[in-house]
């Protein structure tokens, strides 16, 4: 079946720099996208979501960009902090006939260097 995947398994950034985590998806019918943060020993924690009728959405220190033409999703984290260290997953869903629940990518491990 179609799936969501990530370009890089590990991303290392300096504290205070901006981080960009990328995600490619293959299901052109996907219309809902979401980013989760998962710290060690914890469940995924919601960060931000976006629907396919938008191409950008901003939250607190985070921005999600959606490019439907190339089926690409990115998460930008501004002024990265040590607490941002975690694995980040993108996930997608197709309404009106797609699989129930969210389909997750494999994750990117974000490492913050002091």
């Amino acid at each position, binding site marked *: 079946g179609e799936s969501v995947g990530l370009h890089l398994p590990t991303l290392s950034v300096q504290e205070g720099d901006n981080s960009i985590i990328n995600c490619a998806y293959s299901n052109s019918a996907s219309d*809902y996208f979401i980013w989760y943060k998962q710290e060690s020993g914890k469940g995924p924690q919601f960060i931000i979501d976006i629907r396919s009728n938008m191409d950008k959405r901003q939250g607190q220190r985070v921005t999600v960009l959606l490019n439907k033409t190339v089926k690409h999703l990115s998460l930008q984290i501004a002024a990265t902090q040590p607490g941002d260290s975690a694995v980040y997953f993108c996930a997608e869903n197709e309404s009106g006939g797609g699989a129930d*629940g969210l389909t997750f990518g494999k994750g990117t491990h974000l490492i913050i260097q002091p």
Partner: protein
Amino acid sequence: GAGVSQSPRYKVAKRGQDVALRCDPISGHVSLFWYQQALGQGPEFLTYFQNEAQLDKSGLPSDRFFAERPEGSVSTLKIQRTQQEDSAVYLCASSLPSGGTNEKLFFGSGTQLSVL
């Protein structure tokens, strides 16, 4: 409680043993999902409930896996005759009261199952 609660937090089972994993969703959440997360991987969908109805169980890997939610709140995932390949973190999630599947999920901390 304020979030999704799962128990036990850790479970060690001998191969062939039956296990039961419990999930308490956020109060009032209609939809409940079970996911399996292998080490270093993203969560994989197992099954979905809307209230007490199990609407999708396509992700259950074998007939040894069984889930129920008899009163539309607490759910139990049961694995019979556990095998080593069942070792994973089992995550439960619930979603907003409208009950749609195209919505953000709130996850519990998971049950880490180790089958020896």
